[in-house]
């Protein structure tokens, strides 16, 4: 193999359906016929149903819990309380950030919606009825809602359960070089700032979380069906938390109705259902309602960000300073690599070349739900990308420069890669100016002044917003990345059957990304077996190799790479067998898609299918039979997809209502395995970016009541509000991924919010508005204009 071959996909054909072909998805056949098997579709003999009682108060001491009336309701099998769990050491569980979280509250409740008790009954209806009969007496405590107030010295301490915790500080963490940054700022002609809040959001996949726990009291075998994006890691953590022998635990992630980060953590419902099944000896199902999903699991974002950019008058960026306070809720439960405390937020330096940055972060406990999940992003990279892209636009305005020109001037140039950022990332590749130029051309940027002027004549404000994001996705490498100590490699196991068909098993788990198709295409490309002949399996820990799961756009960079490597290894073994079959020497054989042949005699060849049969029936003496192997891939670096999004909006000056005139998205995710699926991922992310920028957020009143606890209040855009998108691409292969691919599932969610908001801010230039916090609702736009008018 030459170096080039090691980092590019080899040739393929449409019949084989390898890399670069928009093969129709293999998984669709079951979904379009109602044949998907989601968690709620799983029903086992004798199965009972769990419902959870949740706290109506955000902060209160529990005085007493009287469940006697609930226990007497016909059909109720058991009521589980924190006290009962404590007897088994299960009242508290570890979080993925090294904190502890109450499974069922024993001492006090710390957020509205916290789990207080569970009812196990013969039907879900009975379980819900019984919740009404549980009498909990609370002694209300003052709620702490604002994270900045939470960090003041006189705030009530929320986590009095933690030994030595005397305040509401959750973590403090910094990155970059303070002295170098101070020096950069000392040399600046101007310092530009932004102070903005990335509001609390929720991934809200259309399917909520749930599980069916089936612990067999006779065999000790535990099978837990669970909505998990990371079933192997969950199995290990369950073994550690519940003290169950890991070899007896089988976690199965069935079809998952969307994840977006919501289904990475362990939630109390999973633990209570498992404990209940263990104690009762029957399968127990727990399915979250939508309200439960929104108020108690997996919130995202909630970063208060204050940043300064040091610039020269000629538009050169010299340095960046960031102070960020995160609202973590009552338990610190971000799913993130343990060496970073605010995920990958320190990638905040963005797509620009400057020598100094200093990032200071602090987390606060508040009386809100825990979570801190990376909602369709790689560990808090969305917040970082949003901040720098908003800040550079403001800097351009302050310098009277065009925001596109300002970006072009400061982009990291192609010859600077691999590029070492001031906060420690090594960007693998990028051609930022080319992507932005393409987006500008596509959107008609040169015509914008005229378009704005014409709109003004019609009483409309038109604005154009840019975001030129760089993502950092695909964790490992394992030296830097782990979850709860488990290193972030991933795996692929491939077997070619005697009939020339194959099965590929992986440590990741799709939630809609189309893995059954794209992984098959990767192997098809390497082995020449048609993608339609390759079955892909994920999610069952008994039947797949160990892996860390699917989030942070890591499947293609890790398991995808593992699939390439193992397929290439099997191809080399196939060469040995082919030489035996053809009675030729290995050196004399050449490969073309699906076939080895003798150099100079193309008719003397053998197909991969015939080689597969020979691997079980006619292999050379001394060769291990079969055509099968497993590879664990530890990536040498993250991959760094990038792109430029440009949005044109018009704002109604009378009402503050804004709408998207057009939206251009140029993405560069390296080599595209299945262009159709890549574009589908991008469209979905652009819609979610629009959602966050325009309407979708969770907030709280001053008493700690969650506003946004149903789809009536938590606004998810429909087909009617969602803008239309124009996609384009550039291709800069990753220099280290074996086929040059990068992750793509989250680019659009990461990159697009800043583009939408920048466009609205640009439209409001006549008013001099420099910030509106998301979601940029018409009311906020209108208020910003009134405030500016009032001076």
């Amino acid at each position, binding site marked *: 193999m030459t170096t080039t071959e090691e980092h590019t996909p080899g040739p393929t054909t449409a019949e084989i359906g390898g890399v670069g072909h928009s093969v*129709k998805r293999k998984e669709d056949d079951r*979904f379009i*016929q109602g044949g998907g098997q989601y968690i709620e*579709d799983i029903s086992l003999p004798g199965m009972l149903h769990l419902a959870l009682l949740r706290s109506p108060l955000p902060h209160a001491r529990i005085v007493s819990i009287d469940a006697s009336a609930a226990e007497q309701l016909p059909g109720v099998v058991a009521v589980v309380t924190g006290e009962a769990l404590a007897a088994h050491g299960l009242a508290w569980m570890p979080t993925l950030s090294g904190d502890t979280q109450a499974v069922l509250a024993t001492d006090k409740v710390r957020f509205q919606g916290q789990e207080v008790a569970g009812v196990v009954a013969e039907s879900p209806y009975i379980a819900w009825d019984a919740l009404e009969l549980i009498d909990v007496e609370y002694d209300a405590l003052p709620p702490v809602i604002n994270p900045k107030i939470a960090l003041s010295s006189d705030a009530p301490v929320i986590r009095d359960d933690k030994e030595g915790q005397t305040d509401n500080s959750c973590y403090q963490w910094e990155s970059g070089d303070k002295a170098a940054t101070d020096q950069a700022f000392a040399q600046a002609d101007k310092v530009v700032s932004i102070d903005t809040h990335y509001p609390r959001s929720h991934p809200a996949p259309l399917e909520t979380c749930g599980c069916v726990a089936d612990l067999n009291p006779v065999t000790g075998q535990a099978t837990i069906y669970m909505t998990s994006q990371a079933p192997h890691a969950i199995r290990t953590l369950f073994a550690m938390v519940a003290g169950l022998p890991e070899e007896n635990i089988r976690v199965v992630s069935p079809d998952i109705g969307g994840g977006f980060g919501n289904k990475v953590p362990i939630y109390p419902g999973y633990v209570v259902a498992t404990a209940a099944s263990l104690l009762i000896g029957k399968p127990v199902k727990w399915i979250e309602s939508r309200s439960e999903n929104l108020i108690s699991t997996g919130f995202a974002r909630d970063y208060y960000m204050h940043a300064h950019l040091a610039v020269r008058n000629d538009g050169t960026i010299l340095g960046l300073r960031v102070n960020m306070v995160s609202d973590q809720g009552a338990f610190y439960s971000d799913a993130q690599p343990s060496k970073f405390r605010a995920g990958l937020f320190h990638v905040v330096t963005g797509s620009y070349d400057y020598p100094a940055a200093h990032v200071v972060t602090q987390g606060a406990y508040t009386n809100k739900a825990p979570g801190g999940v990376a909602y369709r992003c790689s560990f808090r990279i969305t917040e970082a990308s949003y901040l720098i892209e908003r800040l550079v636009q403001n800097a351009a305005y302050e310098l009277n420069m065009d925001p596109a020109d300002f970006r072009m001037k400061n982009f990291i140039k192609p010859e600077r890669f691999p590029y070492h950022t001031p906060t420690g990332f090594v960007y693998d590749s990028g051609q930022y100016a080319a992507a932005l130029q393409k987006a500008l051309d596509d959107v008609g940027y040169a015509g914008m002044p005229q378009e704005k002027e014409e709109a003004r004549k019609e009483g409309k404000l038109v604005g154009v917003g840019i975001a030129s994001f760089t993502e950092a996705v695909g964790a490992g490498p394992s030296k830097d990345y782990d979850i709860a100590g488990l290193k972030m490699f991933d795996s692929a196991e491939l077997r070619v059957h005697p009939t020339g068909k194959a099965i590929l098993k992986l440590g990741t788990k799709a939630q809609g990304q189309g893995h059954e198709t794209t992984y098959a295409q990767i192997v098809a490309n390497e082995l020449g077996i048609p993608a339609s002949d390759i079955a892909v399996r994920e999610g069952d820990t008994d039947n797949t190799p160990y892996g860390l799961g699917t989030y942070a756009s890591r499947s293609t960079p890790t398991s995808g790479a593992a699939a390439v490597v193992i397929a290439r290894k099997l191809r080399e073994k196939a060469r040995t067998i082919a030489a035996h079959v053809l009675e030729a020497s290995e050196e004399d054989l050449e490969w073309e898609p699906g076939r080895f042949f003798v150099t100079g005699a193309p008719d003397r060849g053998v197909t991969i299918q015939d080689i597969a049969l020979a691997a079980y029936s006619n292999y050379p003496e001394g060769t291990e039979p079969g055509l099968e192997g497993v590879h664990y891939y530890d990536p040498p670096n993250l991959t760094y997809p990038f792109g430029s999004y440009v949005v044109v909006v018009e704002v109604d000056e009378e009402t503050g209502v804004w709408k998207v005139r057009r939206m251009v998205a140029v993405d560069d995710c390296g080599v595209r395995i299945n262009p159709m699926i890549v574009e589908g991922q991008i469209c*979905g992310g652009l*819609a979610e970016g629009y959602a966050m920028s325009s309407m979708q957020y969770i907030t709280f009143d001053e008493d700690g009541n969650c506003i946004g606890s149903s789809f009536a209040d938590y606004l998810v855009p*429909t*087909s009617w509000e969602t803008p239309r998108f124009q996609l384009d691409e550039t291709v800069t292969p990753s220099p280290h991924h074996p086929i040059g691919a990068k992750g793509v599932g989250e680019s659009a969610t990461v990159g697009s919010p800043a583009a939408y908001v920048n466009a609205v801010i640009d439209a409001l230039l006549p008013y001099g508005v420099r910030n509106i916090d998301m979601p940029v609702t018409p009311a906020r736009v209108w208020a910003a204009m009134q405030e500016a008018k009032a001076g």
Partner: protein
Amino acid sequence: MNVTVTVNGVERSGDVEPRTLLVHFLRTTLELTGTHVGCDTSNCGACTVLLDGMPVKSCTLFAVQADGRSITTVEGLKQDGQLDPIQEGFKEMHGLQCGFCTPAMMLVSKALLDRNPDPSEDDIRWELSGNLCRCTGYVNIVKAIQWAAKERATA
């Protein structure tokens, strides 16, 4: 109480509590799990089925309200071993990702095309606006329905 409905052309019945929602009757009593539940407030539309040909959110009806009526669920779209053009369209145009909203989206689409065989993009987007999708940004769902409309016109 006994509820009898014609589901996908077959008469089915079951004994349920009066408060049983239609979606639970379909999913639990009749074991037709292609119809999904995505919210508690009738916003998401994942539970949409056709009741006498009209899309309804089956979490918003009691099973007894459907007694004696005719219901189409996703399991009934395929006829005589042939996928409905709507089903084919969703696959051809990549109109689904996680698949959770898909059965409902396809049933809404079918009702639309039965009423309006040549809808504009705005017609389609308006018709779909009672159903949420978190994966696709709706782009390819619209294309899937346009594909199906063309296919039906030439069939």
